[in-house]
């Protein structure tokens, strides 16, 4: 096999092992560190596949996420309890997982091979259109930005709205002012 594919598969195995540890470990802090390791693996894969924009974003967002998660997790005990495992539940989960694997493997055979995007085929598709006309149309040397902020700027507006709404949601959950207090009746709201 191609050594490049072997490298990618090794990184993929590293990420899968990391996510299994993150899901199964008892300690929340170790789980957060494993999530950071998965993000680092994904950033390296992005670099090898020739997507530096994505790699930069992945690295910085992962660092920020790990910092926020450590801040949240640090003073907190794991409050989950082990539940008794039912044979029927485990059996049905395994059965449906097997069905999903078989169907997914069957569906994989009909997909395009890895590394040959559908839009850049022998037919001059939309990707070829962007590569040919991008510089004259937008004047941006970075074609990723040309697609993100010119050709597909409406998508980016939706993305920005999602971030805006989630940040407002975080403020609403974390706020102190304006919350109803059920324990004390005589205290006046500030």
């Amino acid at each position, binding site marked *: 096999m191609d050594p490049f594919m072997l490298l990618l598969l090794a990184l993929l195995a590293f990420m899968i092992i990391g996510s299994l540890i993150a899901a199964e470990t008892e300690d929340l802090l170790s789980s957060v560190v494993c999530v950071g390791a998965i993000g680092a693996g994904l950033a390296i894969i992005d670099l090898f596949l020739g997507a530096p*924009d994505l790699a930069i974003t992945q690295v910085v967002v992962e660092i*920020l996420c790990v910092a926020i998660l450590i801040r949240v997790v640090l003073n907190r005990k794991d409050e989950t309890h082990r539940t008794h495992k039912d044979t029927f539940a485990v059996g049905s989960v395994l059965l449906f997982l097997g069905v999903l694997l078989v169907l997914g493997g069957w569906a994989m055979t009909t997909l395009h091979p890895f590394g040959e995007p559908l839009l850049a085929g022998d037919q001059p598709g939309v990707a070829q259109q962007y590569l040919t006309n991008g*510089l004259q149309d937008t004047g941006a040397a970075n074609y990723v930005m040309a697609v993100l902020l010119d050709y597909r700027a409406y998508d980016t507006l939706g993305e920005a709205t999602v971030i805006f709404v989630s940040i407002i949601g975080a403020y609403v959950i974390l706020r102190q002012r304006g919350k109803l207090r059920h324990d004390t009746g005589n205290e006046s709201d500030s």
Partner: protein
Amino acid sequence: MTQGMSLIVKTITRLVTSFITLFGIYIVLYGHVSPGGGFAGGVILSAGMILLLLAFGREQTMKIISHSALVIWDSAGALAFLTVAVVGYLAGDFFINFLSTGEPYRLASAGTIPLSNMAIGAKVGAGLFGVFLALAIFRPGRHQEEE
């Protein structure tokens, strides 16, 4: 001021934070020429501020930028991005690149793309740092004195 981390961390932070901020501004401004862009640059800016917050504690950081100022920056970035879209609508079509595309590979090129990058950078940077600051200052079970 005994808040924050040790003297070593504070000294290194003092040296490094300005360079991190400068790099974030560079990533935002040159998003249309080199890899990067508004989102990544904004996250780098907020990461520099988070380093400051972790090293010096929240009182020192709130002297530089308060939480309400962060909310204003966040909303202003979102509004600026929407303004670019709506002005494009007035010039012909939603999100049309109404400025001249200019000479490629220069800083002043690509029409509205640098403007959108700056708006997204301000929005993402202020918003993500605001969430971290909110986690630091809004403690459960205690009234919030400082604003």
